[in-house]
């Protein structure tokens, strides 16, 4: 279980997180929604330790993430980045098997390659993709490779940062379905940040809305449409009028 308690983060004079409280239960898929620039990515990076919160506590199964042993802590996570963040200098299979080629999870290269190809198959890519370089792939294929990399070491917790950004609606649907299938199949805890409502409905068990640096509303995805929260209503209907300023 991931717990965020009164998390604050600012950049210069801009207060991005102003007391975030959020619980992500084990085995659930939590989707954090919110407008651009509301601090969703910052929240995710604070959990992973890529950024340090100014104050507040973030715990994973009761252990403060800032005090956890880094390698063991990170070994529990997989992450799909917004732009896939594949390593340009490595072929696809080495990207997918990156964790299996070095560090505590190191396997012999042939075995790591086998696992990479199996994970590529799992995300709908054929083995001939394995030896291509990321620059030779389309945006959708890069996202799939990023997804394969995120699940390669079978992590307990997977983070998805804007998984469908930049994809056409059909490919976005394919990625959403893959994420849902994989999360259910692996029994993983998932946290997704997005402002794509089709992703929210496809992926989420629970939804949290981040606005003005705090969680405005949280609840099961089935209750989202009838949440009664003006911020959530405006966001999911995409209305220009409401409590969220259209010009930010």
């Amino acid at each position, binding site marked *: 279980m991931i717990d965020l308690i009164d998390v604050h983060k600012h950049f210069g004079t801009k207060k991005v997180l102003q007391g975030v409280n959020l619980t992500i239960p084990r085995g659930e898929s939590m989707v954090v929604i919110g407008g651009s620039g509301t601090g969703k990515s910052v929240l995710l990076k604070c959990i992973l330790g890529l950024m340090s919160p100014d104050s507040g506590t973030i715990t994973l199964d009761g252990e403060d993430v800032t005090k956890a042993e880094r390698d063991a802590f990170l070994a529990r996570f997989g992450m799909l980045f917004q732009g896939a*963040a594949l390593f340009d200098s490595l072929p696809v299979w080495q990207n997918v098997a990156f964790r299996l080629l070095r560090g505590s999870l190191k396997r012999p290269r042939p075995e790591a390659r086998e696992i990479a190809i199996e994970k590529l198959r799992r995300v709908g890519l054929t083995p001939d993709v394995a030896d291509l370089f990321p620059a030779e792939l389309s945006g959708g294929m890069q996202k799939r490779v990023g997804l394969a990399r995120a699940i390669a070491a079978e992590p307990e917790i997977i983070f998805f940062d804007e998984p469908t950004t930049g994809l056409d609606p059909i490919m976005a649907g394919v990625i959403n379905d893959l994420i849902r299938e994989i999360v259910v199949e692996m029994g993983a805890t998932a946290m997704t940040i997005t402002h794509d409502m089709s992703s929210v409905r496809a992926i989420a068990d629970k939804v949290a809305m981040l606005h003005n640096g705090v969680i405005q509303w949280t609840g099961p995805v089935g209750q989202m449409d009838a949440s009664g929260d003006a911020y959530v209503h405006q966001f999911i209907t995409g209305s220009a009028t409401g409590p969220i300023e259209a010009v930010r």
Partner: protein
Amino acid sequence: MNPAAALTARIGRATLGLFGAIGRLVIFAASAVSHILRPPFYPREFLSALLNIGYLSLPVVGMTALFTGGALALQIYAGGARFSAEAVVPQIVAIGMVRELGPVMVGLMIAARVTSSIAAETATMKVTEQIDALVTLSTHPMKYLTAPRVLAALIVVPALVGVGDVIGIMGGYLVGVEQLGFNPATYIKNTWNFLETADIVSSLVKGAAFGFIAAVMGCYYGMNSGRGAQGVGRATKSSVEAAAVMILAANFLLTNMFFTA
């Protein structure tokens, strides 16, 4: 605020900024050295860096040294003629190439070719979240990106300087023998007899120092790049400028250390 106070405040801020920047750079360089010494090590990345920094720099280093040596021979011959000292061409070309021009030219070529490439690649990795991805894959970016490159530069740039020295002397020899009418055997003998071990050691030490500076600057500016294409461009430009200035400053300090004691 009165103008004098405003000026003082501005100078104070600039001084603090300068010392802050120097401090960050020194801490980064110290961290790079500590990551070179502590496991895990990444031999594939190290070998790749050796190939990129060393082997692939050979053509540009060789051509630069060849033409520099040739031009040096012509200048010494023309200058020496003013006081009937044309015969010192082999000795001065040798000492000039080994002590100064070889290391400095190679250092600047490495700054242009390697520092820029490291900075641009690392900055692009930062902008596209590849460095964050490394962290989430339990891989320390300093260990995976910086340590192998700095170690490779530390080892291979002295070798490049050695190659540059030899090719530069050869450039002087070609001009001396083919154009200025020197006897080939006498030219080689005068070169060989005039050089001392200290000249060669100073050349190689300079090479190691310049390699370290070039790689550290590329990694530092790349890792600290701003956002977007402009951030990558600025990081690349700043890394080359800083590396070139620091190489020339280090050359002055090392020359002072080796030859004025």
